């Protein structure tokens, strides 16, 4: 085995289940075209709640993608994760034959911010309505933050190191970092990412206390970070799963390394303390650059956190200036999530998937619904911008106070 320092993590597969596409291809097409799919909430039992606009995943039929024996024991957030994992494994062409002799070489890591609210609500209603004998045994596992990791592991037969990051939004990047550490310690491949399903009655009610949640009912105006009209964020469901492999292991089985995960750092500055997040996010960016041995000037595009709260947007713009210096004025910044909403832990993984696709396609996707940026940032608005992209920086902050940054670089052999 190579020494830990030499064991680099490359992305070989991407699977997306997002409001703007239930496949990686449709997600990227909508993302690069700047399509906004934010819309009025239509989910049963949610229509009368004060959250009016969200990014719903529509046209997703779990029964088409996942065997019934897994469906009955899992929540929607796990359906998304399992479907995305399938897409990622197919994309990486990583099948059972590849690890049949070495099942301990493949691990699973997911991040989760809330677990299975819809499943939990149904079972708890049975508890109140009919009594404890009517609560199904699968309630014990389906609501749980770790459910997606466990089910992906069981279904795929992945017996390598497994983990779950139970955290706020930034946990999506922290899960990817955890996968890189797992690979440095000797695991060949990790199925990693996050998907969330926060659009069910109980789950929505839990979010109503977030003062940063947008309550506008106009899908075009509800989520406009970096503008004077910023009035909070719009939540979304869905997410992305990736196959991340040790570079030499990927090469030896003939897989295409689509991007290299170069560096990561995370900090914590406290819930809803957005002014303080300036220093925390800047420190995370510096840490990720240092981990990646990358100079600020090498960053070709930034995928911003873009919370849509004025103080948070200002803190993010200042953090970029603090950490990147003059380069912060020049580097293109984008936030495609303004077209889909923020899928909690799934959001930064979707951004990372978009960053890989952006580098492959030589184009920075735009920031839908955002015009008249009021910060000293070159935010890409309107339409996608062609650019030679070698290195990307993805940022994420969570409502509970986590900040994370990840640096990734184009794969050594871009696909033709």
């Amino acid at each position, binding site marked *: 085995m190579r020494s830990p320092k030499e064991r680099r993590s490359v992305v070989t597969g991407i699977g997306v289940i997002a409001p703007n596409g239930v496949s990686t291809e449709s997600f990227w097409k909508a993302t690069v075209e700047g399509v906004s799919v934010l819309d009025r909430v239509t989910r049963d039992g949610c229509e009368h709640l004060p959250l009016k606009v969200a990014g719903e995943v529509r046209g997703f039929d779990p029964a088409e993608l996942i*065997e*019934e*024996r*897994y*469906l*009955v*024991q899992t929540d929607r957030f796990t359906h998304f994760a399992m479907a995305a994992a399938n897409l990622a494994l197919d994309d990486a062409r990583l099948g059972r034959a590849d690890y049949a002799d070495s099942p301990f070489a493949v691990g699973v890591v997911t991040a989760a911010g809330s677990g299975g609210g819809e499943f939990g609500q149904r079972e708890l209603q049975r508890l109140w309505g009919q009594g404890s*004998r*009517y609560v*199904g*045994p*699968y309630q*014990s*596992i389906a609501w749980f933050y770790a459910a997606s990791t466990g089910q992906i592991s069981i279904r795929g037969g992945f017996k390598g190191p497994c983990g779950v990051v139970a955290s706020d939004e930034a946990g999506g990047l922290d899960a990817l970092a955890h996968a890189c550490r797992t690979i440095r310690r000797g695991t060949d491949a990790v199925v990693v990412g996050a998907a969330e399903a926060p659009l069910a009655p109980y789950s929505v009610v839990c979010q109503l206390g977030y003062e940063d949640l947008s309550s506008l009912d106009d899908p075009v105006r509800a989520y406009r970070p970096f503008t004077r009209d910023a009035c909070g964020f719009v939540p979304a469901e869905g997410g992305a799963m990736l196959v991340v492999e040790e570079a030499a292991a990927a090469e030896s089985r003939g897989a295409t390394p689509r991007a290299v995960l170069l560096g990561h750092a995370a900090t914590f500055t406290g819930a809803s303390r957005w002014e303080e997040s300036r220093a925390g996010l800047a420190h995370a960016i510096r840490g990720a650059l240092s981990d990646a041995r990358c100079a600020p000037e090498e960053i070709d595009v930034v995928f911003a956190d873009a919370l849509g709260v004025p103080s948070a947007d200002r803190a993010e713009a200042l953090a970029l200036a603090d950490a990147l210096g003059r380069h912060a004025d020049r580097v293109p910044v984008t936030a495609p999530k303004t077209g889909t909403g923020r899928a909690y832990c799934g959001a930064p993984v979707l951004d990372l998937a978009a960053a890989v696709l952006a580098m492959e396609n030589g184009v920075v996707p735009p920031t839908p619904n955002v015009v008249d940026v009021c910060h000293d940032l070159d935010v890409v608005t309107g339409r996608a911008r062609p650019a030679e992209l070698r290195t990307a920086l993805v940022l994420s902050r969570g409502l509970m106070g986590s900040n994370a940054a990840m640096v990734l670089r184009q794969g050594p052999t871009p696909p033709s």
Partner: protein
Amino acid sequence: MTAQLTLNELAALMKSAAGLTVDPKDLANRADMSFAEFGLDSLGLLGIVGELENRHGRPMPTDAERCKTPRDFLDLVNTNNDRANADKATVPTTGA
């Protein structure tokens, strides 16, 4: 009289409680194969026990959810049914 649990009913319960499609004939032919090989995990069997308890309004034998094979399960559950019916027939005169 409490009806005996049949292989058809067990197959239907495996479908509703655990999402497994099992042919009752297959269940009959391979009644000594483990539930795990049919794809039924311990929580799935627990769900089936719970459903039967709710249907019949009385508890199953304590080890019902520990049965390893369809035959063991049917034997235990149906023996329990026989006892319950016998108990109903002879009304006890004491609380013991």
